[in-house]
């Protein structure tokens, strides 16, 4: 056993153990914390794969941003946090997952298995020789990655499309999660202002109508998200 192998096994146990806790934890907040544990283990796997840049990106994007987003969502939907963790079809889901894993392990594993006429397992990948070290990573692999993003013969178009996708997704997320439609807010404010103007007219010229800002702040607490 080399040190790398021991590290791999430990990190894999962290990843898979965290993953199992994510899908079985009763408390959704604990599930979100175990998701961070699992992401952290995946960071370690990237380090083992000599992909340091992606380890850092995993740390920043998944642990720093996505899990915080998930924890926010868990807290904003707090009333249902402790609900039953699994639905009624969980035994079927477990069977399906185990079967899918068995098929994938059969296909990818090192042991050749013959079922009927077909042989599965012990796939030979190009450049992968059993017992030989993997080819060395070139020192400029990140330079090549960056150049492939700006080269329209490689991934330039895909890179631009991805940038548009994330922009549209962010604007869409803000629009979907907004408190109320802006149109409704404006209509309500106009109605309130009209009512007050009418009242002020009936009461006489001495009484001034409430400023718009005060009516807005008076209705604001009712419109904000209820948290328990």
């Amino acid at each position, binding site marked *: 056993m080399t040190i790398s192998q021991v590290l791999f096994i430990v990190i894999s146990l962290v990843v898979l153990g965290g993953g199992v806790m994510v899908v079985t934890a009763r408390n959704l907040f604990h599930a979100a914390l175990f998701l961070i544990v699992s992401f952290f283990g995946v960071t370690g796997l990237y380090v083992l794969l000599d992909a340091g840049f992606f380890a850092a990106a995993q740390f920043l994007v998944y642990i720093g941003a996505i899990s915080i987003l998930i924890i926010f969502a868990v807290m904003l939907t707090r009333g249902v946090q402790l609900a039953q963790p699994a639905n009624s079809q969980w035994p079927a*889901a477990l069977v399906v*997952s185990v079967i899918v894993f068995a098929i994938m392990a059969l296909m990818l594993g090192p042991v050749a298995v013959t079922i009927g006429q077909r042989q599965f397992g012990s796939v030979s990948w190009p450049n992968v020789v059993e017992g030989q070290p*993997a080819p060395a990573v070139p020192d400029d692999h990140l330079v090549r990655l960056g150049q492939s993003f700006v080269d329209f013969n490689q991934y330039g178009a895909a890179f631009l499309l991805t940038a548009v996708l994330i922009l549209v997704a962010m604007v869409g997320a803000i629009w979907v*999660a907004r408190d109320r439609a802006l149109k409704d807010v404006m209509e309500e404010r106009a109605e309130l202002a009209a009512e007050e103007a009418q009242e002020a007219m009936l009461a006489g010229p001495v009484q001034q109508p409430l400023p718009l800002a005060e009516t807005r702040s008076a209705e604001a607490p009712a419109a904000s998200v209820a948290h328990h």
Partner: protein
Amino acid sequence: MLNGIPLYWFLLVSAALFCIGLYGVLARKNAIAILMGVELMLNAVNINLLAFWRYVAPNAAAGLAFAAFIFVIAAAEAAIGLALMISVYRNTQSVDPDKLDSMKL
């Protein structure tokens, strides 16, 4: 760093992580937990992409580029999915996908 680790170890771990995520997506009663399962599945895909990059084609940028695209798409998916869940919760006080059947005939 790869001293003595065969490629199929990575493939088996990522297959296992994918199936754990699949179980979460199929069996959880809470839509946010389902999104967590999807995140696990995307992570499994990324492990696979980077493992194949490292072992099969470390000189090509393809594996790294695809992994970077998966990162961006996972971020977009999480933002949209969680915004939808917050919106649904605000309207129905529930994030149980079994109860969101108002579009059923």
